[in-house]
């Protein structure tokens, strides 16, 4: 039941409580927010179970945690810990350069990132229950998430307009299973919820994602890498903006006095594009 809500990255129980107080509908428990993973370099892995358990004990809202792409043992551990969702995430260093996790082998539901419709449908065919745009995590720059959302949602609209013969070609072009392509054409909608992630830093960014057609938003570095004195206020403002995403007067009101957002990074300044991970 996360539609219309905000899922916030947190690295400590205190941050988890701030997120819950602000109205987050879930938290993502991880050791470092993507901006720090980007800064530190090296190999990024699943978080310490103790840290995840600390966050689980701190809040009553659902807790998600990240496993590396293809690292099914990390996912098994997260399932054993009783997390509510596993994010098979490109933000961590991939463990397998060919295969994603067979998510049907798990009871815990999975969310996966995607940059286009074909990638999104391949993740569903592996058992993902929720898709998010990849965006470019840790940049505070919404441009890639917008690109991914427009690509996925635009192609969904085009598939719903295609005739039955054209669907075979769509499946081929998308490198996606034909039955899923046909299902979109028949039902006029994507089979699972689509959320936005990667680069959301302001209430306006969250509302932009929602107006483009995302059904909920993930905010990673955007909250706890912004002005520390107004972190709680910014978190709350992003929750308000995600609910009232079509009301510019409310958006104007909640965008006031939030202090400095995270500085952010331009796409030409980064040397590692996480969104290129995933196959």
């Amino acid at each position: 039941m996360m539609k219309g809500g905000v899922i916030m990255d947190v690295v400590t129980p205190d941050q988890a409580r701030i997120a819950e107080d602000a109205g987050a509908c879930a938290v993502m428990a991880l050791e470092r927010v993507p901006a720090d993973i980007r800064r530190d370099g090296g190999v990024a892995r699943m978080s310490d179970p103790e840290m995840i358990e600390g966050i689980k004990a701190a809040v009553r809202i659902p807790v998600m945690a990240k496993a590396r792409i293809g690292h099914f043992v990390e996912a098994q551990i997260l399932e054993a810990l009783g997390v509510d969702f596993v994010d098979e995430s490109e933000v961590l260093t991939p463990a397998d350069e060919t295969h994603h996790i067979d998510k049907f082998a798990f009871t815990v539901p999975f969310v996966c990132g995607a940059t286009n419709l074909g990638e999104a449908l391949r993740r569903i065919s592996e058992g993902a229950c929720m898709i998010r745009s990849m965006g470019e995590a840790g940049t505070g720059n919404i441009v890639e998430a917008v690109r991914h959302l427009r690509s996925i949602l635009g192609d969904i609209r085009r598939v719903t307009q295609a005739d039955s013969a054209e669907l075979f070609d769509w499946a081929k072009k998308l490198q996606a299973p034909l039955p899923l392509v046909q299902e979109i054409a028949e039902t006029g909608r994507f089979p699972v919820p689509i959320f936005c992630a990667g680069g959301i830093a302001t209430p306006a960014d969250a509302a932009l994602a929602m107006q483009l057609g995302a059904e909920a938003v993930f905010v990673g570095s955007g909250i706890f890498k912004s002005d520390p004195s107004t972190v709680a206020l910014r978190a709350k403002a992003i929750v308000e903006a995600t609910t009232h995403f079509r009301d510019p007067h409310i958006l104007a009101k909640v965008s006031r006095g939030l202090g400095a957002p995270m500085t952010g990074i331009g796409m030409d300044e980064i040397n590692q594009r996480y969104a290129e991970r995933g196959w």
Partner: protein
Amino acid sequence: MPPVIGVLALQGAFAAHAESLRRCGASTSEVRTPGDLAAVDALVMPGGESSTMSQLLESSGLFTAVAARISKGMAVLGTCAGMILLASEVLDGRSDQRSFSTLDISVRRNAFGRQIDSFEASIDTPEGPFHGVFIRAPRIERVGPGVDILGSLDGEPVLVRRGNVLAASFHPELAGDDRLHGYFVSVVSPGDVPDGHHRAGAGPAGAAVDTRERKREG
């Protein structure tokens, strides 16, 4: 003018509720502000995170407005988190979590477990079995006088009613069975909607979608 049923759209499964209501012939409208509420005749409070919804009810000014409308007799259907909002007593909630205290019931938040413990089961109702989808569901631990039990699971109440206020601990909007929504529409517009006329099965594709959604939704 046929009545308009509002769906509280602060966070959660509001879109699926609106679709079910429309299949039952109702006009629907999303409610996010007191102004939106003024334009509707009844309200559905969906599942979602009750703490998130409770905070957004406060900040939007809707808490007071909804409480006033309920006290004047507005029909309400609350499901999952929506049921928590209607309960007179919330156990295991946040200390600052507010509810409308419309139904004299005690509910325990997430009492059926975490996401991974979500399940589907057949509910006994006077209208026959109903497919219940339970996701991080609250449990009704006490039912006060004047509250009727309309549905139960293994002898435990999961669907209750007092007058035109209905509450379910499960997600009827994900069941592919619109009878409960049809019933609510008939409560809102008595005489307009023949009873038991609204069974709408989701097609095979819809059922497949639901299966994936159930595993995911929380």
